[in-house]
């Protein structure tokens, strides 16, 4: 008897894909922490972690184990439910964003077609924005429920920073959408495969988007919510054990996802530059895997840039951050949008 008309294979396919992507996000985030320390050591002429395993490769595992086994302290004056909800929300929102990113070319073999994308919905990139705008709550709830002045200040800083930088981010994105004519992530990639990467046409848009991504991920030079010298530790000050780990980890997952979004929007997604790889006649499985590897290479490059910037540029002051966001980036992205709109209209006439 068929109780519900659900395609079991469809569900199975999507669940597998989701599990793989979540596992991948965790894995990449784990090794980004390692890369962060190694790159920092390299830039500062040190050795970095080198004790656990060869080249210190097991260091993230050791860190994770340490966080799991630490004593968990929930402050007496905190709001217990919200205190636990905060890191959970931060993690969930960090992970949900990956659903609409096309991770590689579709696997097409005869009649079966498996898209390497969980949901290729009409709204595509807007969903990313929706989730990012909800991502503020993880920080705000965690900071507020700790019942600590420093945490609250940091949470409010973080939230207002994220809300402010969403605007130029969205405006710089409109220019890309004007060129593509679609919000679907798969079509944005397809357009770039045909007409060249968006970075060639939208360098300013990319720079604005990148700066905003740094701010959205609370990365240096915009890591004001974690400014140790003013706020002790930041919005996760009262957290210990794996709850703290979730907050720190969510930041790395956010970095990973925003790198993937940038690669997809501006650097052609899973496209290999200069060549037409679809004409090579590769087997479908190899083709899909290769496109996925290309996207991963781009993502890893962006992750490196994130880390590089962190250990190169000092932190902004808070008023400088707000001035940059509201008085420089928003007008710049508006001008960029207007020019793109005018050019698109003129060229398509």
């Amino acid at each position: 008897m068929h109780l519900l008309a659900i395609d079991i294979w469809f569900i199975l396919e999507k669940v597998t894909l989701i599990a793989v992507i979540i596992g991948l996000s965790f894995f990449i985030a784990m090794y980004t922490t390692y890369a962060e320390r190694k790159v920092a050591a390299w830039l500062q002429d040190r050795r970095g972690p080198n004790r656990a395993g060869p080249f210190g490769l097991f260091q993230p595992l050791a860190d994770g184990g340490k966080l799991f086994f630490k004593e968990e302290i929930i402050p007496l004056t905190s709001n217990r439910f919200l205190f636990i909800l905060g890191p959970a929300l931060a993690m969930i929102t960090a992970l949900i964003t990956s659903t609409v990113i096309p991770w590689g070319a579709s696997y097409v073999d005869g009649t079966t077609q498996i898209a390497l994308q969980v949901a290729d919905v009409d709204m595509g990139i807007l969903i990313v924005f929706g989730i990012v705008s909800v991502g503020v709550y993880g920080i705000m709830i965690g900071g507020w429920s700790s019942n600590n002045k420093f945490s609250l200040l940091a949470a409010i800083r973080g939230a207002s920073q994220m809300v402010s930088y969403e605007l130029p981010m969205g405006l710089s994105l409109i220019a890309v959408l004007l060129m593509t004519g679609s919000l679907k992530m798969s079509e944005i990639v397809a357009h770039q495969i045909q007409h060249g990467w968006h970075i060639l046409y939208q360098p300013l848009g990319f720079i604005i988007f990148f700066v905003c991504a740094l701010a959205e991920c609370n990365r240096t030079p915009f890591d004001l919510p974690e400014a140790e010298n003013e706020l002790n530790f930041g919005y996760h000050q009262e957290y210990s054990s794996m709850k703290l780990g979730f907050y720190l980890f969510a930041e790395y997952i956010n970095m990973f996802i925003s790198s993937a979004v940038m690669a997809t929007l501006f650097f052609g997604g899973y496209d290999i530059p200069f060549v037409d790889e679809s004409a090579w006649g590769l087997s479908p499985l190899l083709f899909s895997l290769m496109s996925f590897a290309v996207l991963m290479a781009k993502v890893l490059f962006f992750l490196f840039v994130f880390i590089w910037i962190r250990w190169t540029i000092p932190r902004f002051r808070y008023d400088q951050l707000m001035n940059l966001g509201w008085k420089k980036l928003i007008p710049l992205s508006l001008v960029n949008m207007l020019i793109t709109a005018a050019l698109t209209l003129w060229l398509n006439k």
Partner: protein
Amino acid sequence: MNITPYIFWFLSVMALFSALMMVTSRNPVYSVLWLISTFFAISGHYILLNAQFLAVVNIIVYAGAIMVLFLFVIMLMNLNRETEPQKNRWLKLIGALAGGCLLLVMVAALKDAELQSQQAMVGTGSIGLIKVLGKELFTRYVVPFEISSLLFLSAMVGAAVIGKKEPAQTLKS
């Protein structure tokens, strides 16, 4: 059997329960969180009706932006159960009266509404997709659309004027 009715009932129960909890919870921060959950349930309904754009914009604007501002205000004012002013008995009575009046109006308004002939189009229709919606907005409804954007602009200018710092007063001799 289709799965849509199950999702519909789940979302409806979630929306109603969250809305009730939002009104009844004493802690204002909980109220905000329940309201966000209500918005998500309503967005789910929009998706069921294939109004994808509306669903996502509802999340971005209401759950993402407006509720953050609410939360800001509540957190900064540090409203707690102890500091919340207790309303007196008369206010409660009048509130019940006003609610009853609203109920009467709703009943009168919905009395003639024919539910049979106006069934929701579940999962079909393309009016909620961004391409169709954009064309409609910029051709058929362009004047109201532009007027509402002007309204928004004036509200923004007003907020900027109010929020602007007063210049330091200089003594004129």
